[in-house]
C-alpha cells in the first residue's frame, strides 16, 4: 500500500456541504409531511420501494464487487449473467409449472410463441410454489455453470492481463451472451409471472403484503446474510481478500488461486442469477436487456461503496435505491437517475475511495 498525498481541506469542505445538503433535504421532508403535502403513506411507500430496489441491486452488486476485486476487472458481462439467470431459472420453472398446460416448445422458450401465458399457467408463488422454488435454484446453478464455462474459455486465458483488457473481453462476453439468449428466446419482452398474490395480515400495521415482493426481500436478505457468514467464518473470505491484495504472494502462500477464483465465480454468478430470477418474479417482465439496463446502477453501487467491499456494495445499493425513489419527492421521474448519479459523484469526491474504502484495478 503506497502512501497517498493527503489533502483534507477540500475533502472536509465537500463533506460538510454534502452533509448540509442531506440535512436540508431531511428537514424539508419533515416540513412536507407536516404541512400535509407529502402524506406519510406515500413517504413510506417511496422508502419501501427504495429498499426493495436496493436489495436486488445489492444482490447483484455483491457478485460484481467480488469479481471486481479478486479478478481485478470491471466485469461488464455481469449484467448479462443476471439475464442468463433469469431466463435459465424461469425456463425451468415453466418446464415444471406448465406441465400439461402448455406445449414443450412454448415452455422451453418461455412463451416466445405466446403459447404459455403466465396467467393461464398460474405461475405465482401461490399457484405453483414448487416450480418457482426449483426455478430459483436452477437460476443459481445454471448461471454458475455458464459463468464457470466462460471463465475456462475466456478469463482463464487472460489471468495475467491488465484490467482494461479484461474489461473489453467482458464486454465481448456480454454481447455474445445477450444475443445468444436473443437468438434462442427472441427479443420480445413478455410477462412470465402471474399477478402477484397478496396476503392481508390481520395483526400487522400494513394492509396487504405482496407475496412476490416478500419472496424477493426474504431470499435476498437470507442470501446476503449467508454470504456474510461464509466469508466471515471460513478461510475462503480471507483467501479472497489476500488474492485481491497480491496474487503472486497468495500463490506463494499456498492459496490455490484457481480454486479461489472458482469460488468467486460460484458465489458471484450464483447471486447474479438469483437476482435476475427474483427481479423477474417481482416485475414479471423478462427481456434480454434486463441485466444490461441494470448494470450501470449496479456499478454505481459497487463503486460508491468502495470496490471490493461487499458491505460497501450493499451500502452503495441502499444509497442508490433510496435516492432513485425518494428523489421523486422533489424532482420529476425522468431525472431520478440524474439525482442518483449526482449524489454518487458528490459522495466520491468526499470519500475518494468509496464509502468503505477499497481496491482499484485500472
Amino acid at each position: 500500500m503506497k502512501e497517498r498525498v493527503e489533502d483534507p481541506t477540500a475533502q472536509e469542505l465537500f463533506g460538510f456541504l454534502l452533509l448540509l445538503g442531506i440535512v436540508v433535504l431531511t428537514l424539508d421532508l419533515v416540513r412536507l409531511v407536516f404541512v400535509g403535502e407529502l402524506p406519510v403513506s406515500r413517504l413510506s411507500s417511496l422508502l419501501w420501494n427504495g429498499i426493495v430496489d436496493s436489495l436486488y441491486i445489492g444482490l447483484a452488486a455483491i457478485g460484481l464487487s467480488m469479481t471486481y476485486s479478486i479478478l481485478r476487472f470491471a466485469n461488464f458481462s455481469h449484467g448479462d449473467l443476471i439475464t442468463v439467470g433469469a431466463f435459465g431459472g424461469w425456463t425451468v420453472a415453466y418446464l415444471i409449472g406448465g406441465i400439461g398446460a402448455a406445449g414443450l416448445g412454448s415452455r422451453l422458450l418461455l412463451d416466445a410463441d405466446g403459447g404459455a401465458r403466465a396467467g393461464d399457467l398460474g405461475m405465482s408463488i401461490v399457484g405453483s410454489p414448487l416450480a418457482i422454488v426449483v426455478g430459483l435454484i436452477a437460476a443459481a446453478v445454471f448461471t454458475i455453470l455458464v459463468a464457470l464455462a466462460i471463465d475456462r474459455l475466456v478469463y482463464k486465458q487472460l489471468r495475467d492481463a491488465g484490467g482494461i483488457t479484461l474489461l473489453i473481453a467482458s464486454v465481448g462476453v456480454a454481447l455474445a451472451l445477450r444475443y445468444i439468449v436473443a437468438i434462442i428466446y427472441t427479443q420480445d419482452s413478455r410477462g412470465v409471472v402471474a399477478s402477484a398474490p397478496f396476503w392481508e395480515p390481520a395483526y400487522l400495521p400494513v394492509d396487504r403484503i405482496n407475496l412476490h415482493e416478500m419472496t424477493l426481500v426474504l431470499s435476498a436478505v437470507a442470501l446476503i446474510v449467508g454470504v456474510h457468514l461464509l466469508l466471515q467464518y471460513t478461510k475462503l473470505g480471507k483467501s479472497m481478500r489476500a488474492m485481491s491484495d497480491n496474487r503472486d504472494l497468495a500463490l506463494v502462500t499456498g492459496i490455490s488461486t484457481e480454486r479461489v477464483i472458482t469460488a468467486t465465480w460460484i458465489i458471484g454468478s450464483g447471486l447474479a442469477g438469483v437476482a435476475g430470477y427474483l427481479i423477474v418474479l417481482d416485475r414479471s417482465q423478462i427481456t434480454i436487456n434486463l441485466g444490461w439496463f441494470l448494470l450501470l446502477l449496479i456499478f454505481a453501487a459497487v463503486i460508491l461503496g468502495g470496490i471490493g467491499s461487499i458491505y460497501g456494495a450493499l451500502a452503495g445499493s441502499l444509497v442508490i435505491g433510496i435516492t432513485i425513489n425518494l428523489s421523486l419527492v422533489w424532482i420529476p421521474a425522468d431525472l431520478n437517475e440524474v439525482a442518483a448519479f449526482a449524489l454518487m459523484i458528490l459522495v466520491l469526491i468526499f470519500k475518494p475511495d468509496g464509502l468503505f474504502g477499497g481496491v482499484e484495478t485500472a
Partner: protein
Amino acid sequence: MSESTQATAGEKDTTEKRVADPVLQIEELDKRFGGIVAVDGASFAVERGSITGLIGPNGAGKSTTFNCITGVHRPDGGSVVFDGTDITGESPERIANRGLVRTFQIARELPEMTVLENVMLGPKGQLGESIWRSVAPIARGNVIEQEEELRDQAWETLEFFEIDHLAEEYAGNLSGGQRKLLELARALSTDPEMLLLDEPMAGVNPSLERKLLDRIHDLQEEGYSFLLVEHDMDVIMEHCEHVVVMHQGQVLAEGPPATIKSNEEVIEAYLGGEI
C-alpha cells in the same frame, strides 16, 4: 555518559543553537494515524552542506517524518522550515521545486516508462513542460536543445549508477536493487539543494554501495545537503557528520556518530547491545 545526556532530546529549544546554519529545521512535528502516534513531537535540524543520518528502530517514524517533510502527509502539528521558509503543509510539488527532494524506501519506479524516461523526468525547469511550448512551433524555442542536454546528462547519470545498459528497458522490469538505483538517479537528476534518502542502500550490492557513497560525498562538497535514513550502522558511522536517533516518534538523541554510538539509550533501543 555526560555527552550523551547533552545530546538527548530533552532540550528541544537548543536545537537551533546546535546547528549553525540549518538548511532544514523540524519543530515539534506530530503525526498520528488513528490511534497510532507515528511521530510525536520530533524536533531536529540539518546543517547546510552536511550529511545527517536519521536512524532508529523499525517503526520509529523515520519514513513518516520524511512524508511529513515532503508534503505527502500533512502533519498534525509542528512545523517544517526549509531554507528559512516555513513549508509545513505545502504540496509535494512545491516542496520539491524548492529544492527538497526525496526517495522512497520502497522504490517507486514508473514501470511502463523506460529507465531513461524515468531519469529525464527529474530535472526541474524544463521548458517543454508547458503544453504550449511542447506544441506551438514558434514558442518552442530551446526545447529541443534543452532536451538534448537533458538526454546527455541522463546517460551520464545512468552510466554512473551502472544501469546504462538498461536505459531502454521498462523500469518495471528491473531487479529490486536496480530499482533502488534508479530511484536515486532520478532524485539526483532534479538537481536539488537537499536530498532526503530513505534507505537508499538497502538491497544495493556492496561494491556499488561504496561508489554511491563516494558520489554522495562529491555532491556534498558541491554544497548539497543530505538527510539519510539507513540501517547499516557502518555507513552511518563512517559517512555522517551528525546523527539523529528517533524512537517511538520522538528524537531520542542526536550528535556526532561517535557520541551516538556510545549512547546507552540508543544502544538499548536500536543497536541491540552489540558493537
